[in-house]
């Protein structure tokens, strides 16, 4: 398939604060939408398509339209967990290519830090669903689902905690170059706001065996917004367009005799790369949902950066750092581990991919031309979604 360039990210904003007790989530969304429109040089009244993950107080397809005072003619409320924004970007590409939309907004606002939401260790709270009834009696926590993937990966492929720690090390290396990430770690009272070593990760306490504290994402406030526009609109915006050239969507869930070390990305990512007409080894920047170290490890394999089972060797030796060769730069904003994770990190995967391809990252890959954003929503090891977006510089 020939690569299509119908839709582009033309405006971005990442809400800078990760601890924002004095604003609401919907205020974070509206503030971010305005800032992203300003970035693009577009007006409030230009918005004709609304994509919303039903976050924020009174938000959703209807609530956010009313709050903003807009009357979009495309309304998409896809909510599939943290990867919702990759799914929404895929739908915006499709709707724009079909001529149904010209200026699409995606936004996110969350108060997870202020509200002290125990994302990782809170246990099952959904009650009365057929799946909750089979989980709640066992004290299953969110992180334990990921930890069980890690144990199986270790058992089958000999992957070690030291290897997985390389992901935390590279991500923190990038975070220390991002002033917003440094401020985030400071505001959220990280024990050490500094670069870390594999040994530091190994010495941090185990939360759910075999995952250590420094392999777990932070719980922050925050949000952001993205403007995706048609190529006609993109011609006249203030910023260099970042083209959306491929998308893939998939689900994965627990199955009898299923392979827990394979994520939804294995189904969706090849579709995205094929549509884009690029191979994983051409990718300069990989933004992969780092809820935990193991999420990145599994997804690197499933996206085709290395073979299943070989990620331990692949990520060793600092290969994922932005100034190293032999692989894409990983999570150059500092990731969910060390920069921003209010619960649905998919937004930031697209934001940092756009910054890389505009040449604006604080850990900028020289001459970056191609990026991939891969969100994993729900529970790796349990029921989850994978959304993949391939992006290209203008």
């Amino acid at each position: 398939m020939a690569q299509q360039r119908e839709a582009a990210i033309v405006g971005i904003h990442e809400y800078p604060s990760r601890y924002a007790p004095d604003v609401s989530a919907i205020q974070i969304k509206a503030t971010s939408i305005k800032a992203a429109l300003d970035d693009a040089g577009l007006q409030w009244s230009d918005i004709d398509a609304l994509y919303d993950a039903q976050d924020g107080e009174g938000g959703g397809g209807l609530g956010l339209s009313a709050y903003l005072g807009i009357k979009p003619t495309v309304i998409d409320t896809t909510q599939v967990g943290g990867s919702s924004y990759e799914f929404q970007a895929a739908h915006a590409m499709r709707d724009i290519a079909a001529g149904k939309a010209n200026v699409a907004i995606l936004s996110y606002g969350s108060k997870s830090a202020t509200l002290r939401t125990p994302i990782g260790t809170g246990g099952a709270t959904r009650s009365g669903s057929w799946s909750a009834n089979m989980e709640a009696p066992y004290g299953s926590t969110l992180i334990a689902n990921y930890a069980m993937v890690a144990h199986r990966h270790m058992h089958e492929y000999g992957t070690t905690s030291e290897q997985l720690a390389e992901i935390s090390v590279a991500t923190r290396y990038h975070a220390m170059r991002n002033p917003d990430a440094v401020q985030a770690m400071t505001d959220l009272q990280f024990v050490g706001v500094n670069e870390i070593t594999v040994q530091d990760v190994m010495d941090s306490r185990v939360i759910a065996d075999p995952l250590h504290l420094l392999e777990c994402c932070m719980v922050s406030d925050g949000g952001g917004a993205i403007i995706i526009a048609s190529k006609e609109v993109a011609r006249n915006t203030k910023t260099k367009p970042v083209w959306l050239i491929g998308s893939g969507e998939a689900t994965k869930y627990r199955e009898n005799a299923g392979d827990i070390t394979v994520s939804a990305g294995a189904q969706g990512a090849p579709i995205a790369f094929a549509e884009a007409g690029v191979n994983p080894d051409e990718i300069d920047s990989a933004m992969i949902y780092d809820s935990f170290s193991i999420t990145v490890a599994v997804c690197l394999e499933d996206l085709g950066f290395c073979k299943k089972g070989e990620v331990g060797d692949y990520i060793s030796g600092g290969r994922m750092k932005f100034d190293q060769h032999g692989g894409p730069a990983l999570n150059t904003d500092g990731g969910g581990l060390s920069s921003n994770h209010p619960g649905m990190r998919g937004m930031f995967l697209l934001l940092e991919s756009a910054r890389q391809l505009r040449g604006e990252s604080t850990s900028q890959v020289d001459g970056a031309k191609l990026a991939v954003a891969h969100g994993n929503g729900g529970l790796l090891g349990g029921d989850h979604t994978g959304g993949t977006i391939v992006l290209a510089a203008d």
Partner: protein
Amino acid sequence: MTKRPMPQFFEPDTQDFWDATKDEQLTYQQCNLCDEIVFTPRARCTSCGSDDLARKISKGEGTVYTYSVIRQNRNPAFADLGAYALAYIDLDEGFRMLSNVVGVENPLDDVRVGQRVRVIFEKQEEGEYLIPLFIPI
């Protein structure tokens, strides 16, 4: 005695499974049309869509597919349990179930992938249903 949360039947799909626990039976479904093993319980076959599903009783023996020893859970029912092992168990009849491996001195040393286990049914401080857990064989 432990205080694990009881299932809540705003939904009907797992009712039969939990009712059977009162007789210390671990049950699963199998499609009468295509033989697919279905678990967790639901209304239709995941392979062919049929609603002609037979309920079968498992021998309750299986293998630990993977596990994690949880050190921190803020849910009050588990906060005081100490470290405990959450695991996926592959039952010999061909279904995979989330549960806990118990009856070991130290879950960090005594639970492993590939371990053979069998079901036990644990009575709770409150509630009528017994909770299926697994112990090493």
